């Protein structure tokens, strides 16, 4: 067997310690990354909340008589609006119809929150 690096046979005890230590390193690394992501999310959430509050305060003080923006009316029996990500309306309608058919449920009993295209070649 050709060896590239001078390697010695490891003792089973050393292998056990290395395995446990390695698992801890992976866990610790991803745990710290998780904390960083939570901090980042918290910063962005607070910024978004502040921006929303500012907008509300401005609209209340500057234009008290302004008519609130009315969201587009929903169809009779509809459960509300749906968010589409990279999906045309026609395809979204087909997806919802297929799901309703497969579940043997009327379409107006289902509440779709969002539809997002997951590319099949995403590896």
């Amino acid at each position, binding site marked *: 067997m050709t*060896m590239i690096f001078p390697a010695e046979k490891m003792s089973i005890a050393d292998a056990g310690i290395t395995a446990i230590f390695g698992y801890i390193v992976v866990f610790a690394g*991803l745990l710290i990354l998780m904390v960083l992501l939570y901090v980042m999310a918290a910063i962005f959430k607070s910024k978004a909340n502040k921006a929303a509050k500012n907008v509300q305060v401005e609209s209340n003080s500057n234009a008290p008589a302004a008519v609130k923006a009315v969201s587009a009316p929903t169809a009779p029996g509809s459960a509300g609006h749906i968010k589409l990500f990279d999906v045309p309306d026609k395809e979204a309608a087909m997806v919802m119809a297929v799901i309703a058919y497969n579940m043997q449920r009327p379409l107006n009993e289902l509440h779709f929150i969002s539809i997002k295209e997951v590319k099949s070649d995403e*590896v």
Partner: protein
Amino acid sequence: MNILDTLQTLLNESGFVGFFMDGGWKNLVMIAISCVLLYLGIVRKFEPLLLVGIAFGCLLVNISNFFVDGASSANALYHPELWSAFLDESSEYYHSYGHIMSNGGLLDILYIGVKTGLYPSLIFLGVGAMTDFGPLLANPKSLLLGAAAQMGVFLAFFGAVCLGFEGNEAASIGIIGGADGPTAIFLTSKLAPNLLGPIAIAAYSYMALIPMIQPPLMRLLTTEKERSVKMVQSRQVSKTEKILFPIIVSMFVILLLPSTAPLVGCLMLGNLWRECGVTARLSDTVQNALMNIVTVFLGISVGATTVASSFLSLQTLFIVLLGLIAFSFSTVGGLIVGKIMYKLSGGKINPLIGSAGVSAVPMAARVSQDEGKKANPSNFLLMHAMGPNVAGVIGSAIAAGFLLAVFK
């Protein structure tokens, strides 16, 4: 010119004569194995993009290379003895790519990209550009599932040492449990290139077999009630968060384990190109054209390492067995932490998403979705499982970086 002499020369140069030489039967066995791999890739669609190339590389190397007195035959496409000299510190050709370029065959030259870690890194560039880390950002707890699912890596490493493998070889075998082909190839090419063929084949075969390996373990370790849990919609992630993510991960992970720089750096650069919104052309190129080109070279050059004389050994059987153990325990690790999260969240997290912590994007997430749907037809776990799934890619890169730091 004597026609009989010409015929004699042609006959002696013919590969058919090789089958009757000492050890020639091994080439026949390898040709049969390559045909089985081609069948699995083409008919059963087991990771066809890479397995077909690997299988054909295996076929090419074993019909063109018959060893005579320890040396490859004249028309060989791949010369293991050149690489042995390349790795031998006492040889005058130690680390001499010039020697490989001037004496090697076609597959030797393509293999340089594997040896230098170029192909796996470029594949990661494409993977990064294809991956949406949104589900992970929406639910950062997914990272713990990605970490838990590296359990198989370290258990298989320990098992390999117990079976008599050297530490560096055991590390390369263990990384099969990361369910991440490019990472397995990258680490093995650095630590144990003599085992590259069997490890790459085991890694890609088991990745293709995930829909068969994982469901029995998922049903064994979870109850019907746990599997039917419907998870609530994750929050929307802003564009800025998606742009900052690859920068933060690169800085943190590479500073933590510098040996992960080629893999994590390329993965995150690809992702930054995808998310930043001003490099759509580059993102498109690395996702499609570059990814396809590198896949061509990677598959065929990995297949070239399956030379009969080294591949047909007890070691290969051990690697196949340990690879299965690694995959199974990685799934178990993810499911156990998934169950803990289920308990701690008061039943809000479906433990099935834990098994998606093995990389294998998006196959493992689809398996979680399918199993969840079987338990509760209105269940939709795919996007929730994508979080641990992409976390597994980062987790396996960190595991590989740790093993590289310890054994190189």
